[in-house]
């Protein structure tokens, strides 16, 4: 093992740690690539587009999910070699806690704004996080090579919207590399070096962790004080578990082992942690014998906010689904799952997600990487239900909501949503927020054309296609971020769907009493489209308790017969009937009614009005 990487300096004064804050598609990953190229870390030969985004899925969505950092040697114009630690941050609202932990490992942030788009809500949210973390922010105006670039307008917007001096904003084109040298100089000049006593007791912050098939859990850490060295016995604060440090090092961009990570350094730690959940983002690592140690501030054991049932289409795939979830959770500590049984869908799992994007990603990975055919029920949130005897229970599955009359109060999770949009779309977006039971907290013009809305919204309303509607009502121009804002009591009811009088548990939904009728009616009519006609009439009803609030009828099938069947037809027609029979086996029987898998997505297709 080399004592140290000869190219990387070790002094704090010559270290700069920073991250890139940007809205999706504003060019964060491309800029990271350019920086690595400019510092010689990434040669033409091993250049891959957007090196930091490891997974295909991320590349497709243009979102970085797994924070991944690199250390780059940079020869500045003053002749000094610096160690630049670029710390990658996830770029979506679902991951804001992880963003905040990444920021805590930095002294500075590059605020990347698209010269053609301007400041977006998500950028604002992350800038606030960066300001809270006392970071030096360098505004970077990207995509100046585009004909529609308007750096002056964007500069104004950065000042007006974010209150950040943009006079010295660096104009770059991550695509062509223009301005990247000036940016690197600014990083060295303007971002302060880390501080922290290298001789003090060890305090290291876990910025990220992931599963490696050969090494077990790898933790990305920022050493705040003291030093991490192989052979030390360390303790992870949140779990209290102790481990022996096996290896430390940096990514440049491949793993380079080092003899130590000292205060101010950012790098990786391998110490035999077996489960990802034991290396929690934001946790503090101390020496095992440092019994009086206090943890670094800011640790939160994050909890899922969105829940959904996931069932294999073919019940034979249940073990495969369980294996896939176990494997996925190796690399996704925020994914929760526990077995769930549905009368309609059989055996499956209830999954908890950080948010909707997280849910989509997990669902897609299960289907794509593990080749599973799944039915996902409509997403739900976790309600707090106060039962008649005064106990409070958490309910994350509408089917498990206690019966009417057995509880005194239901509270639902509330979020604060910050929405930015061009003012031309204000009318329909305000209407949308009001329809979704939003409470307006703020409405202000950021510029003459740009409005920022702050709404308190029930999370349950947001999980029902809110984001899609926001995008479609604003032709894609509105952006949104949100954060949890506690619980609030609401007049909520469980709407059940009944098929010929039998309740279909997987289709129960919780909704506000005022919208229950409309949602029930929409669900019934969607189901009518999806339930095939049977030999008898099928009544589809939506009900609150015993009260039916909406009803449709699937008329009885009147003809189910093959027109002709002579010698030459027999074999083919028999196979046709046999095929129909096989198809019917995939239907789920509710009472004597056969329901196709697609019907279980019906709740998802409601537009939420």
């Amino acid at each position, binding site marked *: 093992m080399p004592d140290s990487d000869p190219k990387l300096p070790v002094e704090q004064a010559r270290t700069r740690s920073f991250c890139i804050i940007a809205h999706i598609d504003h060019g964060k990953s491309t800029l990271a690539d350019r920086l690595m190229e400019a510092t010689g870390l990434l040669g033409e030969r091993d250049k891959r587009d957007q090196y930091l985004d490891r997974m295909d899925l991320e590349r497709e969505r243009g979102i970085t999910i797994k924070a991944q950092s690199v250390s780059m040697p940079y020869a500045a114009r003053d002749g000094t070699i610096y160690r630049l630690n670029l710390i990658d941050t996830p770029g979506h609202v679902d991951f804001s806690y992880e963003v905040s932990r990444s920021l805590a490992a930095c002294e500075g942030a590059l605020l990347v704004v698209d010269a053609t788009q301007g400041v977006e809500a998500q950028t604002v949210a992350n800038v606030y996080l960066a300001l809270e973390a006392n970071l030096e922010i360098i505004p970077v105006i990207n995509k100046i090579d585009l004909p529609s670039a308007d750096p002056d307008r964007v500069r104004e917007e950065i000042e007006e919207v974010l209150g950040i001096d943009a006079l010295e904003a660096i104009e770059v084109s991550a695509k062509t590399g223009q301005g990247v040298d000036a940016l690197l100089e600014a990083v060295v000049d303007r971002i302060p070096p880390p501080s922290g006593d290298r001789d003090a007791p060890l305090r290291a912050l876990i910025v990220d962790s992931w599963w490696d098939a050969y090494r077990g859990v790898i933790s990305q850490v920022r050493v705040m004080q003291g030093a991490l060295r192989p052979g030390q016995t360390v303790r992870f604060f949140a779990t209290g578990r102790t481990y022996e440090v096996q290896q430390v090092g940096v990514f440049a961009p491949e793993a380079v082992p080092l003899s130590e990570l000292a205060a101010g350094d950012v790098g990786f730690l391998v110490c035999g942690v077996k489960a990802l959940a034991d290396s929690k983002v934001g946790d503090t690592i101390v020496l095992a014998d440092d019994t009086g140690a206090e943890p670094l501030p800011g640790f939160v054991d994050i909890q899922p906010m969105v829940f959904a049932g996931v069932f294999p289409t073919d019940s034979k795939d249940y073990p495969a689904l369980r294996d896939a979830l176990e494997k996925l959770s190796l690399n996704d500590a925020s994914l929760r799952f526990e077995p769930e049984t549905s009368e309609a869908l059989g055996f499956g799992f209830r999954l908890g997600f950080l948010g909707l994007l997280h849910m989509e990603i997990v669902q897609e990975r299960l289907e794509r990487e593990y080749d599973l055919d799944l039915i996902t029920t409509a997403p739900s949130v976790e309600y707090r239900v106060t039962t008649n005897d005064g106990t409070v229970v958490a309910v994350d599955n509408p089917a498990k909501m206690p019966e009417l009359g057995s509880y005194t109060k239901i509270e639902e999770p509330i979020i604060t949503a910050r929405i930015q949009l061009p003012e031309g779309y204000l009318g329909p977006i305000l209407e949308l927020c009001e329809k979704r039971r939003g409470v307006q907290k703020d409405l202000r013009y950021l510029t003459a054309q740009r409005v920022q809305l702050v709404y308190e919204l029930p999370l349950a309303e947001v999980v029902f296609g809110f984001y899609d509607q926001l995008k479609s009502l604003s032709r894609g121009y509105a952006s949104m971020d949100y954060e949890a804002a506690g619980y609030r009591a609401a007049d909520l009811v469980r709407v059940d769907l009944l098929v010929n009088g039998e309740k279909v548990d997987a289709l129960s939904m919780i909704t506000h009493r005022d919208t229950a009728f409309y949602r029930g009616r929409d669900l019934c009519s969607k189901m009518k489209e999806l339930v095939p006609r049977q*030999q008898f009439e099928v009544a589809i009803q939506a009900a609150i308790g015993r009260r039916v609030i909406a009803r449709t009828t699937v*008329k009885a*099938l*009147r*003809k*189910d*017969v*093959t*027109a*002709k*069947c*002579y*010698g*030459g037809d*027999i*074999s083919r027609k*028999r*196979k046709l*009937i*046999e*095929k*129909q*029979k*096989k198809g*019917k086996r995939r239907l789920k029987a509710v009472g004597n009614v056969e329901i196709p898998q697609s019907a279980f997505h019906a709740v998802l297709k409601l537009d939420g009005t």
Partner: protein
Amino acid sequence: MPPADHEGVSLYVHVPVCARACPYCDFDFVVDRRPDVAALLAAYGREVADRGLVGLRPRTVYVGGGTPSALGPDGLAALLSALGAWFDLGGVEERTVEVNPEHADDRLFEALARGGADRVSLGVQSFQDPVLALLGRAHTGAQARRAVVRAKSAGLRTSVDLIVGVPGAPARATCADLRAVTDLGPDHVSVYALTIEPDVPWQALVRRGRRRLPDPDAQADDLARAHARLERAGYEHYEVASYARPGARSIHNLGYWSWRDYVGIGPSAASARHEGGGVVRRSNARGLSAYLAGAAPAVERLGPEAAAREAMWLGLRRLDGFDRAALARRFGQPIAFVDGVLTPLLASGLVVRAGPRARLTPGRWLFHDAAGRAILDPGDAEPVGGG
């Protein structure tokens, strides 16, 4: 004493030519206005010789298509005399030839009668010109009426095919067709609801907005109407799609629903042989050119259980159903097997027992496919290629 339904062999000859293509048809045919009769007969002759069928003594003969009458009076006469040369037709109880109304002149019927045919199946489909236009047929309603009258006066027994439930047909077209049928009084009527298979030209017409797909409810109405009117006019509804005056049931067709052996000659024609409780079914290659080139047939072997299930499904097409003990014997199964398969159908009320027989519950014949799904077992049938 006449032979039981399942006794004897039915002979089918497929004439794979049509003067034009109908957009709903998925039968095996080529469009040829001047078919090469000699080449076709030579190919039939080769097949008969190769399969060792010379001297076969069938119980019924049926010449279908395609459009057999497209061969013309001389062509049909040549075909019928060739059949007489290849096979022993001494015991034939019924000899049917399919005839399209546009070919139905006196010369044709004379040729058929001289050649020994005693029954014609007329491809009428409808007596209404607008419906015939939708179906792309070559004849008119007037020609169809004349065809029935001429066939009867030529001394031939007559069967009329009707297609109902045609989307876009004028209101009450089916009523008018049923009235025409009962006025003309053929011995036998087959009533089919228009069925559009996935790969027929009708689908392309639908995509271009020129046709619609059938409405199953309207078809159910038409089928129920046909049942009521024809029964009232004295026809027995004896199979899902077949009606006959007393004594005029198609002996040939009954063979298919009564597990009789059959031999099919010509492209796409199927043959079935019952042996050891199971069934061996052979289907000739589809397509005239493949057939002429001697392409290998597909062979399917059903074991006794699968064959028995298939037989129950087919047997229930007869509205009088099947004799449970006879079926069990024919397929070497205990009667308990037959009754076991029937149990859920009896429970659901789709099938009833009438003495030794099991049959669709009266009034439920429009749900025969549902019975099929209950009876057939997709796991049983393993197709075997080649041979």
